[in-house]
C-alpha cells in the first residue's frame, strides 16, 4: 500500500541555519510527491511538487527538494531558515488516483 513516512516529529534549528526535513515514500511506481506547509491556524500551502524530470525541484520561500529513487526519499531543504519558517511541514504522495497520502508531519521550531 502507498505510504509516506516523516521520521522526524519535531525539529529545532537556529535562525540562519540550514534545514533538511526527511520524507520517505512507499509505492510500486514513481509517485508524484509534494511538500505542504501549515502555519498555525492556516490551511495547507503547497511549497513544491515533483512530477517527473529534474530530480531537484525548486519551490516557494527558498525551499527545494530532491527526489532520490534509490532511497525512496524526497527530502526538503532550505539553506538558511528564517523565523517565519516555523510551521508544520507535510510530505505527501499521489499515485494513480488523485488521493493525496500524507505523512504525519514535522513541526519546525526556529530559535533566534
Amino acid at each position, binding site marked *: 500500500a502507498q505510504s509516506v513516512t516523516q521520521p522526524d516529529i519535531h525539529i529545532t534549528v537556529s535562525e540562519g541555519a540550514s534545514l533538511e526535513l526527511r520524507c520517505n515514500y512507499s509505492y510500486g511506481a514513481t509517485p508524484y510527491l509534494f511538500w505542504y506547509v501549515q502555519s498555525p491556524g492556516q*490551511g495547507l500551502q503547497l511549497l513544491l511538487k515533483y512530477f517527473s524530470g529534474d530530480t531537484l525541484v525548486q519551490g516557494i520561500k527558498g525551499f527545494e527538494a530532491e527526489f532520490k529513487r534509490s532511497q525512496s526519499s524526497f527530502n526538503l531543504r532550505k539553506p538558511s531558515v528564517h523565523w517565519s519558517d516555523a510551521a508544520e511541514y507535510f510530505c505527501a504522495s499521489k499515485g494513480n488516483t488523485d488521493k493525496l497520502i500524507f505523512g504525519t508531519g514535522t513541526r519546525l521550531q526556529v530559535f533566534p
Partner: protein
Amino acid sequence: EPEVTQTPSHQVTQMGQEVILRCVPISNHLYFYWYRQILGQKVEFLVSFYNNEISEKSEIFDDQFSVERPDGSNFTLKIRSTKLEDSAMYFCASSANSGSYNEQFFGPGTRLTVL
C-alpha cells in the same frame, strides 16, 4: 490570487446533530476534495468529487457523510449524525485537472468540535 475559502472557520455541535461544512473552490476548478485532520494526527483523504459524482472515497467516508455541489460555486460536506470522533479539522481542496499533473489547492479548514 484565487483561493479556496471555507465557512465556518469553527463549528461546535452536539453529538447526533447534522452539520454542513461549506467550501467555495477556485472558480475554474472542476475537481473537489475533502480531507480531515484529527488533532495530532495526519491529514486523511475523505472523498473526491467530479461532474456531480463521487470519484473516490476512503473507508472513513461512510453513510453518515455526503457531499454535494448545490450550485455553481459551493461544495459541501454533510455529516448526518455527528459522533465525538468526528471532531477534526476539515479541509476542502480543488484542482483544475485530474491525473498526472493534479495539483490541489487547500482551503484554511473548518474546525469541527462535537460535544
